């Protein structure tokens, strides 16, 4: 009786226990996702200065000759150790061919990203003669291992930065690069098959459907030849639409196309967004089609190109252009599809709008309704209304056609406003309070002015100059926090000054650029410069500033054996315990691992003339435990970040005894992290048993 009353629950308990035992976690070794963070939190109680501290601060300020404004600026920018910046700036690196990553408001340089120029710290282009990085830099068979990076473009979703990818153009060679913001490394470079130089690159459509590359100096498509006398007939401008495949993280060249444009020297460009979604705006500055020739008594380019009172804003409806491309209306030129002007005019997706002579920047307001063209040689910014443009196109309110039959919209029909700002307006950015900011090159100033129409929000009333802050000196681009998106943040603005002159210690005749941080958080006429930051590694052009928390970079590669080129674990990556040297005839394969503080193997012996393929996995999973690997005399240096796999090949054509070593100080025994590569001269019979290689 008792026994039966007990057995039913017992059976249940037994069954439950068996279930629990089966569920018990099995042998597993790895990072515990839920491990606690024990970084000591800084004391964050409100600051209250005692009279003694005020006296100290005053004394220091006077000793260092600082004003009260200086103290406030320091307090607004000083970033204590361990605290991260609120914004991240991606700056073009100009002739360095790189991208610079800078924290805001501290203005600290965080790192550079090698793009068009091999860079040895990142091991970019130093994996032997067959380096894939070097191969993709070749143009028409020639090594072109520098670039003139101009305009970075962060990938966007619905017109806002999504923090996933960065694109940047190379003005000198008309190339476009894709950088993956998971590891801040260049993944792809595509060469424009049509033209030699570009300028309006890169700009993205609101969902990064296309990465836009606008041309610069007209030339003969496909590296063709034509004498300067044939300029109008044979030279052409263009805009290329590089199709971006977000899932693959690569430009899909096979789905990309270009639109032929008159040889007007395309300048900066911007994508329409929100109200102007679907349109692309591209400035031009040589509608004169001047051909220079100062040496023959002709007007030099600088004069000829500036003769007329107006140039043209080129307006392209890219969705219609895409449809025309897909409908087969493109013609192949040098293997690349080009929609000729005739087709664009017939399709009604290419129009011109007059703009004051030789403008520079064209920038679309956050709501997409106002297109701001900066005058450069005209003291105004001219604002075009996107609704006016669409209406003029629909109503065919044309003042005529240009020489190539492209319809010209009537200026008065599309112009919404003109605001006089000062001398040399170049580029415009926006904030969240209804202000626009325009760089004034000749005035060396940043102008704050109010938007009007649908975007009127500032208290000063529409289309009014509010204030100008002097900057030092000769400002080119400027960049407000997320200031070219559908939702700018305001707060900070960077003045990218071309000249520093007396701002820093003179480092010989070549001086750094001067990035100045401007506080735009207060409305009205208060807009102080907070900080000067020298950029002595190239001449940047444009930059973009993204909220740091939108970026989700890897801290280490997700798996050991990760190939950054494929962004996946590599099946060839040597595993720990599986290292060794495999020989097949004159081909030698080295499988190596690197971990603090040794390479395995430490002896590699090959014969003179062998083709050596060398594979290394950094078997590290700890943040910042990066190794390097170099072989002196063979131009090889790798950066092996935690988990990274790298491969290189070379012909061992110079016999000798070569130490290889870790080039990134990794540990207390870093200097000991080395090995010997023996390249045995032909005919030398001394065997090296330790290498495992058979002679």
């Amino acid at each position, binding site marked *: *009786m*008792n*026994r039966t009353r*007990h057995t039913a629950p*017992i059976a249940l*308990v*037994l069954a439950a*226990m*068996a279930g*629990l*035992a089966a*569920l*018990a*976690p*099995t*042998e*597993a*070794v*790895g*990072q*515990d996702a839920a*491990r*606690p*963070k*024990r*970084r*000591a939190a800084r004391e964050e109680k409100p600051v209250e200065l005692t009279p003694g501290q005020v006296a100290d601060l005053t004394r220091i300020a006077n000793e260092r000759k600082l004003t009260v404004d200086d103290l406030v600026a320091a307090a607004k920018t000083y970033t204590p150790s*361990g605290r991260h910046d609120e914004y991240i700036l991606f700056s073009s690196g100009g002739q360095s061919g790189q991208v610079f990553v800078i924290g805001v408001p501290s203005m600290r340089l965080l790192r550079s990203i090698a793009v068009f120029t091999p860079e040895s710290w990142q091991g970019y282009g130093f994996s032997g003669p067959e380096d894939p990085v070097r191969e993709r830099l070749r143009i028409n068979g020639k090594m072109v291992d520098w670039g003139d990076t101009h305009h970075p473009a962060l990938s966007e979703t619905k017109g806002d930065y999504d923090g996933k990818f960065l694109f940047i153009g190379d003005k000198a060679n008309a190339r476009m690069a894709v950088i993956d913001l998971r590891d801040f490394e260049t993944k792809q470079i595509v060469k424009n098959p049509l033209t030699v130089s570009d300028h309006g690159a890169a700009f993205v459509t609101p969902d990064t459907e296309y990465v836009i590359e606008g041309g610069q100096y007209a030339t003969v498509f496909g590296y063709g030849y034509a004498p300067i006398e044939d300029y109008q007939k044979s030279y052409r401008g263009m805009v290329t639409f590089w199709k971006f495949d977000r899932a693959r993280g690569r430009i899909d060249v096979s789905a990309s196309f270009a639109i032929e444009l008159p040889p007007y020297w395309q300048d900066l460009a911007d994508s329409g967004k929100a109200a102007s979604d679907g349109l692309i705006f591209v400035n031009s500055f040589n509608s004169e089609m001047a051909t220079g020739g100062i040496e023959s008594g002709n007007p030099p380019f600088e004069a000829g190109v500036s003769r007329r009172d107006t140039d043209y804003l080129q307006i392209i409806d890219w969705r219609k252009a895409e449809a025309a491309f897909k409908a087969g209306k493109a013609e192949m030129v040098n293997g690349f599809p080009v929609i000729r002007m005739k087709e664009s005019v017939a399709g009604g997706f290419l129009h011109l709008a007059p703009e004051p002579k030789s403008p520079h920047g064209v920038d679309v307001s956050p709501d997409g309704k106002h297109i701001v063209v900066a005058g450069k040689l005209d003291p105004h910014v001219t604002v075009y209304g996107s609704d006016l443009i669409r209406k003029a196109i629909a109503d065919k309110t044309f003042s005529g056609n240009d020489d190539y039959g492209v319809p010209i919209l009537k200026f008065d029909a599309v112009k919404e406003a003109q605001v006089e700002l000062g001398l040399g307006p170049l580029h415009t950015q926006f904030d969240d309070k209804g202000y626009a900011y325009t760089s004034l090159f000749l005035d060396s100033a940043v102008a704050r002015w109010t938007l009007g129409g649908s975007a009127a929000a500032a208290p000063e009333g529409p289309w009014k100059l509010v204030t100008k802050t002097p900057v030092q000196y000769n400002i080119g681009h400027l960049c407000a926090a997320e200031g070219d998106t559908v939702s700018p943040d305001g707060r900070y603005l960077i003045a990218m000054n071309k000249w520093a002159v007396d701002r820093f210690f003179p480092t010989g005749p070549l001086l750094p650029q001067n990035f100045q941080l401007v506080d735009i958080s207060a409305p009205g006429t208060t807009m102080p410069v907070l900080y000067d930051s020298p950029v002595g590694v190239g001449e940047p052009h444009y930059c973009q500033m993204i909220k740091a928390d939108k970026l989700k970079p890897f801290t280490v590669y997700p798996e050991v054996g990760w190939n950054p080129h494929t962004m996946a674990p590599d099946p060839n990556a040597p595993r720990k315990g599986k290292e060794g040297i495999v020989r097949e005839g004159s081909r030698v394969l080295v499988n190596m691992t690197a*971990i*603090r*503080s040794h390479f395995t193997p430490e002896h590699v012996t090959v014969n003179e003339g062998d083709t050596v393929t060398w594979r290394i996995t950094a078997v*590290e*999973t*700890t943040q910042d435990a990066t190794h390097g690997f170099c072989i002196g005399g063979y131009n090889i240096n790798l950066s092996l970040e935690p988990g990274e796999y790298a491969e290189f090949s070379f012909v061992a054509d110079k016999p000798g005894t070569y130490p290889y070593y870790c080039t990134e100080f990794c540990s*207390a*025994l870093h200097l*000991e992290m080395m090995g010997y590569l023996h390249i045995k001269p032909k005919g030398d019979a001394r065997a090296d048993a330790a290498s495992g290689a058979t002679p």
Partner: protein
Amino acid sequence: MPSVIQHLVGPRVPPDQLREHPARFAAPTLVLALARVLLLISIFLPYWHMELEAPQYPDGLFITAYVNHLQGDVKEIDGLNHYIGMRPLGEAARHERAFAVWAMVAMVLLMEGAAFVHTKWAVLLALPAVFFPVGFLLDLQYWLTTFGQNLDPHAPLSSSVKPFTPTILGEGGIGQFRTYASAGVGLWLAGVCSVMTIIGFYFHRRAFRPLALASQTGGAV
């Protein structure tokens, strides 16, 4: 045969006594049942933590021992340990980790049995669970000592770091590291299970000892 079983499991509770003293007979069953549940739950919980602090690890390094596996920065700690010639942590207590879950299930089954056996020998069935937490700590101490005292004399830092015994509970230090070791929730549960088993046996004997005495003197009820 029935008499052998009867002899082993001891006298059954007469229904009239059960009605009269339900709490007295329920107490050992309930307390021992709860102890068993706690031990089972502890399989899923950490038994031991060690936290390592050093200047270049602002987040610290962690290792957490469960009865059957290790979690945390095992790879990094192994990497550091190779400098002083300590064997990889995964080589420690292999058998213990392989059998722990089944051994614990067996302990629970034995305790299940103890609830049926009304003689004093029932205590033998519960002894493994009573001593389990102490056994865990002794085993851990054994492995810490074995690993700490048997460093590879050819390791890079063998001249500066001599064999040592890592601290099993509380603060210790090695090289630039401070170590903080503590018992995990699982070990605490196992400890509670151990104490509850002892308490359960107090109730067990209080309920069944009179029956056993009665059956010895007065024969079967």
